[in-house]
Structures are given as C-alpha cells and as structure tokens.
C-alpha cells in the first residue's frame, strides 16, 4: 500500500506509522490508538500547548516537545511513554494541584473533573511540592455562571472557544507567569461584560470547576463539550 501524497512516515513507540501533512503528533498518535495525556487540548479547538501534559520524546530534540502543537516530520522517532515522561507528567500534575486551591471533596466538579480523572489516570497519589494557597477571588457577578480562579489551570479552553467558536472573544489572559489569570473583557466583573453572549460554551469546555453553572452542585452528570466538533463543522460549511 502506498502512502497518500505528502504523507509523513515516522516511528512512534517503535511502530512504523504515517501522518497527513501538517498533522500534529497528538492527532497522529490518537489515530494509532496511542494514549497521550492532555488537559488543554479539546477536539474542535485550536491547540496552544498550555498544560504541558502531552510532552513526548523526539529523537534528536534536546528537550521534550508538546505533542499537541508539534507537527510530524518525515522520519521522526517519537516516544510517548518512558520513565522520564511518566515522572515529568506526574510532576506537571502535582504542580497544577499545588499552584492554586484545588479541594476536590467540596468542588462543584467533583467526579466530573478532567483534572481529577487525569491525576487518577496518571497514578498521582500525592503532591510532593508545597501548596501555594494563593488568595484568589470568585466572580459570581454573571447571572448564570460563576468563575472561580482558585480552580483555574489556565488551559485557556474558555478563551479559545469564545474566540474561535462563539466569535465574542470575551475571555482572555492577563498578567505573566504565576500572576496570569483569565479575564472577561477589560478585566471587569463577568456580569458587566458587554461582549459576553451568555452562551455558556466556556462553562461546558472548562475541564475543572473554575467555570460552572450556578446552583448546579451535586448533579450526576458533568459538563458536555461534545457540541464542539459539530459546531466547528457547521460553521466551516457556512
């Protein structure tokens, strides 16, 4: 069988594979049923490499590369699972938990949280680094939704869905490094935003309890971002 025109052939975890031109390592790996953990990636949104969970080893590269934003090159030799990667991912998860105030037991997203399930999947049993316990605020000024900075991991899914799908670009990130935070419009209370359409897409794509519908605690079903690929396709056809 001959490869499609322009296809890239590469080796992933010792197996010969091929990718379409411009395809990311993450996308190609998933096509080959190879698991690479992610948190900021979401099918239907552009990738930004924010969470650093999808780092993989590429032969010849001096550092680990994010699978979601690195495109497959001809002849690449990729390793998605190794003791080094397992350690790295565990530490990334631990840093995410230590950075802000994640208390699963009383979180609105408990049992429906992508961060919580990913920590379980990666076998994280405890956090070795000291918690920072920053004093962060909750913005409950919106009529239907709440933003809790304590639970935000800065994945920027909300920013991307608002910009790429809804087209409102209400959300963005301000500050640098550890001071970064998501904001609405010009860092004003969400409820006063003039651009927010209250569509709720940001809430549905948020992987944690940072964005949540008000008074919806204890429900047995979690968020549902499955509308995204559908919306994307429909809008591309317009």
């Amino acid at each position, binding site marked *: 069988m001959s490869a499609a025109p322009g296809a890239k052939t590469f080796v992933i975890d010792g197996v010969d594979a091929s990718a379409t031109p411009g395809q990311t390592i993450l996308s190609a790996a998933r096509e080959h049923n190879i698991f690479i953990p992610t948190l900021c990636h979401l099918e239907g949104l552009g990738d930004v490499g924010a969470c650093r969970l999808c780092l993989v080893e590429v032969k010849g590269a001096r550092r680990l590369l994010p699978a979601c934003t690195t495109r497959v090159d001809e002849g690449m030799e990729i390793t998605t699972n190794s003791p080094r990667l397992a350690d790295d991912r565990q530490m990334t998860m631990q840093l995410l938990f230590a950075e802000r105030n994640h208390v699963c037991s009383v979180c609105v997203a408990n049992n429906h949280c992508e961060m919580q399930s990913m920590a379980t999947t990666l076998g994280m049993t405890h956090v070795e680094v000291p918690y920072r316990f920053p004093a962060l*605020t*909750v913005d409950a000024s919106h009529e239907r939704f709440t933003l809790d900075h304590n639970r935000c991991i800065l994945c920027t899914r909300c920013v991307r869905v608002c910009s790429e799908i809804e087209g409102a670009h209400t959300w963005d990130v301000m500050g640098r490094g550890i001071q970064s935070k998501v904001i609405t419009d010009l860092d004003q209370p969400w409820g006063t935003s003039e651009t927010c359409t209250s569509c709720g897409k940001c809430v549905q794509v948020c992987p944690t309890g940072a964005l949540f519908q008000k008074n919806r605690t204890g429900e047995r079903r979690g968020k549902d971002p499955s509308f995204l690929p559908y919306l994307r396709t429909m809008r591309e056809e317009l």
Partner: protein
Amino acid sequence: MPKTITIAPVTRLEGHAKITLQLDDAGVVQEAYFHITQVRGFEKFCEGRPYYEMPGIMARICGICPVSHLIASAKACDALLAVRIPPAAANLRRIFNLAQLVQSHALSFFYLSAPDLLLGMDADPAMRHILGVAQTAPETALDGVHLRQFGQTVIEILGGQRIHPGWVVPGGVNEPLSLEKRDKILAMIPEARAKVQRTLTWFKTATENFHAEIEVFANFPTLFLGLADDDGQAEYYDGHLRLSDSAGNIVASSLDPKAYASYIEEKIEPFTYLKFPYYKPLGYPGGVYRVGPLARLNLAERCGTPLADVEWRAFRAMSNGPVLSSFYYHQARLVEMLHATEKIEQLLLDPEILDKHVRASARVNSNEGVGVAEAPRGTLMHHYQVNDDGLITHANLIIATGHNNAAMNRGVLQTARHFVRGDQVAEGMLNRVEAVIRTYDPCLSCSTHAVGQMPLQVELRAPDGALVRSLRRD
C-alpha cells in the same frame, strides 16, 4: 492537700476533649471542667464561597452526621433563594434526616455506651468496647451493627453514597425517588423496627442496675429546647422552636427559628473552645437548656406514630414533669429510633413521595438565610449572609453539642462529686464521669467546627493548680 484529676482523653466520644476535676483538702470535688480542645474555623474559611457550595462544605464538619449539616445548610440556602421547596423534596429530606438519626443513635447507643450499660461501669476497660459487647451479647452487638447499616443504607439509596452525599441541594434534592428505591427501603423497615423494640425492652430492664447513675448523671433542672410542629408533635426537619422549663411548663411554644439570635446568646469561657449558649430572656445560668433526644421527648406532646407514642407515654410516666436525668438520653434515643422507622414508612407510603418535581430553582433573593433542623444530638442552626452575587460574607453555626455544653459541664461536676473522693479513685469511678458526657453523645468536632488535636483526657488538680493525676487514653 488539694488536688486535680485529669481524664484525658475522654474515650468513646466523637471528637477530642478532656475533663479536669478540682479537689479540695478533704479530697472532695469542688469544680469540674469539660474542655473541648480543638478549633477548626469552618465559619471563617467559607467566606467568599458561592452559597450553593455551602451544603457540601459544611457537611465536611462531620463524617458521622454530614446529613444533618447538609439539611440545615440547604435550608439556610433555600432561605437565601426565598423559595418554598416542592413538598416531595421536603419529605425526602425528612426521610434522609431520620435515617441519619437512626444510624447516629445506633452508633451512640450500641458502640459508645452499650459497653458501660451491658458490661457495667466498673468492667475491665480492656473489654469495655463494642467487641466486648460482641463477646458477651452477640445479638445486641449485631443489632447495633444492623441498625447503623439500616440508616446508612437508606442514606446511600437516597443520596448515592453513605458519607457526604451531594443529593440535598439548595431548592430541594437533585433526584426524585424511584419506585424501586422506595420499595427497597420499605422492605428493610420491619427488621430494623424489631431490633429497636428488642433493645428498648432490654434497656428498660437494665436501668435497674444503674440507680446511682440515674440519680447523679446530670440530674438537675434546666430548660429544654427543640423543634415541634404546630400541634406540639415532635418534629425533626421543620416547625417552630419550643422551650419548656424543668416543671414541664412551656416557656415559649413557637419561637421563629430564623430569629434565633434574638433569644439565644452564647457565653464564652476561657477553659474551652466550645461556647455556652443560653436562653437570653432568662440570662445565664438561668437560661441554660438541654437539647437532643431527652429534650425532644420532654417537649413534645407526642411523637405522632403509634408504637413510638406508646413508648413516649411510658417514658414520660417515669417522672411527674419532664425526665431530668441525662441517663435517660439513652432511652430517649431508642424511642426516637423507633419513631424514625415508623415515620420513614409513613412518608414512603404516601404516593406523593414519588413526585418528579423535587427542586425549586431561583437566584439569590435574600441576603440572609437561617436553616434549623434537629440533628441526632439536638437543634442545629446554620445562618448565612451573602452579597448580591451569592458569595458568603458571614456564617454562624450553633451545633447541638454546643447547646448542651453548660449542662454537660454541670453533669460532670454532679457525677464527679458523687463518685470521686480523693486522688485514689478507681478507674470505674472516672469512667462514670466520662459516661455522663456520653449520655449526650456529644460530637465535639461538629460543635467547634475545629481542627482536632487530641482525644478526651481527665485531670485532677490541686487548688494551687498543681497537677495531681492525669488519665489519658490514646
């Protein structure tokens, strides 16, 4: 020489505390202090959180009675929404609360106090625990395990999990009851009821062995406080607060639970982290009251279910007025468990319990809300204030064990005066001092909403403060 005895930690309690007994030169107990030695701070760290997280946060105060906190907290949140929750939701919460009452009472009676009641106050401490009960009277121990399981299973069927279920939410509950679940609970009731009845029969004969304890286990006049409905019937979920005096006169029949701050004041003592609430119009200590099973049966004009009413009448017939000895908290607990099995059945047999409309939704319509319900140990009050966005700006909790604080301290003094002489006291004497506390089934972690450090201990101290003897069990 004057001396001090310390019992530390006091065992078979939920939480951590110690007792100090102050002796004079003749070795007579002059003062007794029940110290709660933990601070937790739930009222403070919930500030800034959205109101709808409060039931989940406050339930974490206690792993034994999370349901009680869930209910009081959700009721306070209902008040913030200013909604009347659907009737089916209110009744489902009632069942939930009664199931909690059964499992908690079973824990208190069988696991914590039955060792004293069955094996005797002077029994070998190495045997004086639930396993000792299991060896001596396996059927009693099994009844205890089963009754606890009954309550916990009902909670699990309704709420999805036994500890910290998230089913009770502001505005109601988040899932209606299915026919299948209802029938599952109904099928468990007859066996549970038979076990309570069997235990009641045994307890009433066992009291013959405890005349001395009945006489001095916090046997003194106080007021009694608890919820009752408009007809004076015992109520565990809603209703008015009712207050009676030690002669059985109703001091106040329909206090609005929401206005608790206008008639309840809390006194602070330096030796304990637990405050001393009292009925404001009568001052301190005249306004000291007791809450919980004994108070509820003393206040009520009936339980409202046939079998429990028979037992309630027998209970009240033991005294001309209210039953004053805290030893009878045990019996009151059993009567309440019987009532709970009947009431749960009554509520489940009403077809409306299966109504699908179980949650009212609204935004915050009031900046202040109070939720009051009867927890196993007594009246539980949650009081929240929120800003216009629904974020908590202030929270105040008064917990059942707190209401009983003054009575527990006086009970320790009364019991110690009777049983403790000099510093050469037998272990069984000090066990009685602990046992009087156990009658109240205090939940110390709840009452201080605090971070625990040590279980209960007893200290004997000289008038100059010198420590004479200290008992501590880790």
